[in-house]
């Protein structure tokens, strides 16, 4: 019998709020962070909007020594990981040597740092490239730096599957906990909000070219224009329920009850059943049925065929309009691996407070009639079980079931 793995600490750095309380308050109020790109002059770019994280207090007190060797994304991930450990009341220094591990997904690495060093190489010459380039940009950088900074010497892992990566990393972390690691720090963090990064996603299908922040990312409508890229993510602390109880953990946010993943060969989007297979596998892993699910956090890609496919999958799983569906990423954009990790945190807060966040800027009549998308104002409800869905560009599908503690 597999033991329960619970979430005992979380922290979030999202475009509409840095820190758990700030993010949750903004999300329930429907505060959107989608704005014209401000980080560089994007005049003439095919993507004009993004959800950027404004500078916030903790960045000003971040150790200066680490700045030259880190991309801003890594600094955000480090701040967030410390926040999550502190929220959990876990100090790795007080635990046995190898008791705490790290698995934080990243699909972008320190991309802005990478672009700066490419400019050094191509503009000036190889001798001018930073000695930190060998690790500051790559996909394992956040996991490695977090392990060093917090002294976590247990297992490390970086599972990458674009937007699905946050869920897949949590599943990896749960496996480690079940195999005996006392505490795992997990989640996802990404940013491609630099000129070259925006140029890569601009070339992909699905990104919105809209210049209207109120209209650019309204998923599940026939007139959806796509998604808006965002940045940031979330870090979660997982441990066995028995350990959490023994040490008197202050908060148990919920149980990571089930996970499933599948590949969908219909990569751009419509006909495959990958998401449905992933969701069924997650429910089966949790020992639950669709009837047990009280709320769904949708992948909500904003692309018309992908949204239709997701609505069809939700309808097949639950029946038409049988379960409330939430898409809080319409406020913060798609954060790649950070997005599905953030959705898990949002789901846990929903379970805690009995409230489903809304997509504020849309109207029910325009939404795919097969799903009960929560629009306008948040909806209160008694919630015991949430299903989080995620799809990564390239055919990745992943689903996670979370239950109230």
């Amino acid at each position: 019998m597999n033991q329960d793995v619970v979430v005992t600490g979380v922290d979030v750095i999202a475009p509409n709020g840095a820190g758990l309380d700030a993010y949750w308050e903004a999300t329930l109020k429907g505060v959107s962070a989608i704005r014209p790109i401000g980080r560089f002059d994007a005049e003439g770019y095919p993507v004009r909007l993004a959800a950027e994280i404004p500078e916030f207090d903790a960045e000003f007190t971040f150790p200066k020594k680490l700045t030259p060797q880190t991309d801003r994304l890594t600094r955000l991930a480090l701040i967030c990981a410390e926040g999550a450990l502190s929220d959990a009341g876990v100090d790795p220094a007080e635990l046995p040597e190898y008791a705490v591990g790290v698995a934080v997904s990243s699909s972008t690495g320190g991309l802005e740092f990478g672009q700066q060093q490419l400019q050094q190489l191509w503009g000036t010459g190889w001798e001018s490239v930073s000695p930190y380039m060998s690790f500051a940009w790559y996909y394992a950088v956040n996991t490695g730096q977090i392990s060093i900074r917090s002294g976590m010497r247990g297992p490390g892992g970086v599972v990458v599957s674009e937007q699905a990566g946050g869920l897949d990393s949590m599943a990896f972390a749960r496996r480690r906990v079940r195999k005996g690691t006392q505490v795992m720090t997990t989640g996802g963090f990404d940013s491609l909000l630099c000129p070259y990064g925006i140029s890569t996603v601009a070339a992909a299908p699905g990104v919105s070219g809209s210049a209207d922040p109120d209209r650019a990312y309204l998923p599940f409508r026939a007139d959806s224009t796509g998604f808006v890229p965002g940045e940031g993510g979330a870090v979660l602390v997982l441990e066995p329920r028995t350990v959490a109880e023994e040490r008197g953990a202050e908060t148990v946010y919920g149980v990571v009850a089930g996970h499933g993943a599948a590949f969908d060969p219909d990569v751009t989007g419509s006909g495959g059943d990958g998401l449905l297979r992933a969701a069924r596998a997650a429910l089966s892993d949790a020992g639950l049925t669709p009837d047990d699910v009280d709320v769904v956090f949708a992948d909500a890609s904003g692309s018309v065929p992908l949204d239709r496919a997701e609505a069809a999958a939700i309808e097949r799983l639950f029946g038409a309009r049988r379960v409330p569906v939430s898409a809080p990423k319409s406020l913060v954009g798609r954060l790649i691996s950070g997005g599905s990790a953030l959705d898990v945190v949002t789901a846990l807060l929903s379970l805690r407070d009995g409230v489903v966040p809304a997509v504020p800027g849309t109207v029910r009549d325009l939404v795919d009639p097969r799903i009960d998308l929560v629009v306008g104002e948040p909806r209160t409800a008694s919630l015991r079980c949430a299903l989080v869905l995620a799809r990564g560009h390239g055919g990745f599908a992943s689903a996670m079931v979370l239950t109230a503690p």
Partner: protein
Amino acid sequence: MARRAVITGIGVVAPSGIGREPFWQLLTSGKTATRTITQFDASEHRCRVAAECDFDPLALGLTRQQARRTDRVSQLAMVAAGEALADSGLELDGELAERTGVAIGSAVGGTTTMEREYAVLSNGGKDWVVDPSFAPPHLYDYFLPSSIASEVALTTGALGPAAVISTGCTSGIDSVGYAAELVRDGSADVMITGATDAPISPITLTCFDVIKATSARNDDPATACRPFDRTRTGLILGEGSAVLVLEEYEHARRRGATIYAEVAGYASRCNAFHMTGLKADGKEMSEAIDLALGDARLDPTAIDYVNAHGSGTKQNDRHETAAVKLSLGDHAYRTPMSGIKASVGHSLGAIGSIEIAACALSMRHGVVVPTANLHEADPECDLDYVPNTARERELGAVLTVGSGFGGFQSAMVLKNLERSAS
């Protein structure tokens, strides 16, 4: 009965040539495939040597569209996956396709194409605000390392869980470890797993040049990388891919598949010390070895061969020598331990899987492959590193280890089922 993960297919694209056979020939010959870089003009760089693959994706069966939408890093894995799947004899259709997943390791993903396109969009590094109107339509696919797993799934027909594992230079052990866990816990019956990297590009060469991790022995490319040798001066980049078909043991047995070895034990540890530095005591690597042995339910004395990380840096050679001694005790002195990076280069995330493939082939053939270019042993490294000449030896269980930037330390134990059964 606990589920077990066994290797039933192997595919390799390495600097020795395309396929398992040329790879095995190179390793057992004690020769090397390092040469002066041809993939770009490296004449101004500190290190001008690498282990390159002679690789033509179209000649190897990729379509023009596959070749256009992928970086070389995916192409190497697609070809290796094709060989592995054919070797296993599996047909991935119907329910089996849904029970087959993909886990491919890569440290740096599609950086070669990313750099090439960057140079265009930025007008040769002139513009910070690059011009997106010059972006090719598949730029986001080149950018995402996960595209590798996506392409391998598409080309093999796998429909189960898919992901890329990217823990720097231990990615190739960690991806196979991850895949073995999915097989063991029932998330999949078959995993197409392994790793790939194609890092021979100006930016990645520069990454290692600026910290002087690379060997600058440009006048003698064939002996540029000398693991465990007193005269070593650093690592040499390589490229390549190895893909394995990992299958649940009963599934393989029922269909009468030929089994190379069982992936019997795996563990990883972080040293939480430094992004590039290693502590000389090898403690965390040793911890990973101990755990992998425990996972495999083997005593350290059961290990017949150690495949070393052997990157060709003094720091690494001493670190892993210490780690292996800590874990194997006196048995370390009786156990051959060799590294293949002098021959095929350090292909970053790929090499861990290439080394697992080498271990599985060594078990199959009953041959220990040598460490090439080892003529004057470092007196601080006093184990049996199998210099230059292959040895016949029946192998019941082997250990492979890896070490990477970020502080990652990984270990895997393979068991020879034929020998342990007899």
